[in-house]
Each structure stands twice: as structure tokens, then as C-alpha cells.
């Protein structure tokens, strides 16, 4: 199963539509979380929103995640050691307020298990090679030791 997610806030029809069109060409089951969209995907099972629990269940069941370049999707995929394909939202297409997802995609593309598509054609190319996608070899559940100890010291009022 492939799980497609656009996050908790905004629609991202360009992603949902591309994956739904690809879904017509394969036997692979596709489950899509589409956000507050009018779209009615035909070849995917879909829902507008998922509870955090449902989100985690689909993330765990999927063999590949396809998502916007949002940190919730990326961090969860890395932690669960699932390959994730990300298509960044573009401000010019009214998909987000600014282009920070393009920056995110640029910074994270070197990380193992993250596969960046900059447009629908690249996305299709990656989906056609689904079985070759690498996964992360594991990211711990918590922040870096430096960040944790900085915050702990701040809480305990020992921050200089």
C-alpha cells in the first residue's frame, strides 16, 4: 500500500491528482489523505483528514509514503524507516504562503530514504521505480542531545 498525505492544513490537489492518475496504472493500493479539497480521487481510497492515530496506522502499513514536503510527514517516515517521496508545495501555485517547502526539499534530499520530486513528471518517474526506493536506516524518536540539554537547562533555569 502507498500512503499519500498532504498534512493537516491545506489542500494539495496537484499531488493527489498525480498519484491518483498513477494509481490507475498499477495494482498497488493507494490510500490518500487529501485535506479540505473538493477532489474525489477515483483510483485511491481517500479521506480529507485523519486523526493522529489513523495517520500513524497508515504510515506504518504503507510500504512507501508520498507527501508534501511537510515536517510531520518527513519526521514520521524517517522514524518508521519508510521510504518517502516528497513533492514541495509552490507559493506561485497558491499551494502555500511561501516556498519554504522547496527549501526543505533541498536540505533533506541528501538524507537516505527521502526522495524528492520537484514536479509531477519527476514524481511519476519515482513512482514507476517504487521497488527500488531506499528507506532511512532509522532516526531516533527524540531531538539531538544538544537540543535536549539546552532545553532542560533552560527549564531548570540554569541557562547562561
Amino acid at each position, binding site marked *: 500500500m502507498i500512503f499519500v498525505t498532504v498534512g*493537516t492544513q491545506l489542500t494539495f490537489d496537484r499531488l493527489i491528482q498525480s498519484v491518483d492518475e498513477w494509481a490507475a496504472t498499477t495494482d498497488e493500493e493507494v490510500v490518500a489523505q487529501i485535506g479540505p479539497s473538493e477532489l474525489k480521487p477515483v483510483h485511491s481510497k481517500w479521506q480529507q483528514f485523519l486523526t*493522529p492515530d489513523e495517520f500513524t496506522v497508515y504510515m506504518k502499513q504503507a510500504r512507501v509514503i508520498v507527501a508534501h514536503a511537510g515536517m*510531520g510527514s518527513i519526521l514520521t517516515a524517517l522514524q518508521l524507516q519508510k521510504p518517502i517521496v516528497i513533492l514541495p508545495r509552490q507559493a506561485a501555485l497558491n499551494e502555500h504562503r511561501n516556498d519554504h517547502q522547496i527549501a526543505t526539499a533541498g536540505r533533506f534530499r541528501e538524507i537516505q530514504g527521502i526522495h524528492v520530486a520537484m514536479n509531477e513528471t519527476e514524481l511519476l518517474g519515482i513512482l514507476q521505480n517504487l521497488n527500488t526506493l531506499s528507506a532511512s536506516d532509522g532516526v531516533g524518536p527524540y531531538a*539531538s*542531545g544538544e537540543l535536549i540539554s*539546552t*532545553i532542560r537547562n533552560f*527549564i531548570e533555569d540554569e541557562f547562561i
Partner: protein
Amino acid sequence: MSKSKKILAVASGGGHFIQLLRLRPAFEGHQTCFVTTINGYQETLGGARCFVVRDASRWDKIGLVIMLLQLTAVFIRVRPDVVITTGAAPGVFAVRLAKLFCARTLWLDSIANAEEISLSGELAGPHADLWLTQWPELERAGGPVFKGRVL
């Protein structure tokens, strides 16, 4: 051994909250209450209290007022010593409200903001006692500092 503190940990639902959850070891030994904007995180919080407030963007003025009132009610109930937030809108209000309640504040800008500090970060950061970015290139004098990442 320092005294146990009351922590209010605040983040919008989704990526902001997932980043906040990755900070949990820093909260150990203290009393932590969470605030977010979507239901359903309760099960993952190991018994910690979780308040849900309305989500709103800067264009939704009524939503922002409701969020502010709900957050104020949370502050009155919890009386936090420390506020930790990873954004976005509820974090901005929480940092400002914390001043009225004499709580110390930490703003951690989302790792999603790799090339510029978020708008909410620019609004809240200058009022926070500690303002952190997750990208060293975004450190600046009088601005955020880099002390590691959620990853």
C-alpha cells in the same frame, strides 16, 4: 536537584506538534501540560494533560480571538513556570501571554524554516527568553541561536 517546574508545551497540530514531542526527554522530572489544535494526541502523551484550542491563521481574526481566549483560560488553569513552543500561531500567543503570567518562554523555530525564520518566529522570537533556530545559518545577533535539531 532543582525544583519541579510546571511546563506548558504548545504547538499547532501536525508537524509542529511532532517536533514538540521530540523534545520530551527535556521535560522529564517536571509537570508538563500540552496545548495543540487538533484532537487525538492524548493517547501518545502518557497521561499528560492536553488542551485543544482553535487553530487560526493570520487572516482569520475571529479564530485568532477565540484561540487567544482559550489559551488565556489554559494559562489561568495551569499557571505555568515555563512555556516551550515550536509554533505556530498558538505559540505566538502563548509567548505573549506568558509575560502576563510571569512564565519564562522558549521559542524553537520549526526545522521547516531552513532559509528564513518563520513569520510567527519573527513575531514571537524577540519576546521569548530563549529563541532557537534549527539552522545555524539563520543565527544572528539579537536573533535566534542554533543549539541542535529535533532530528
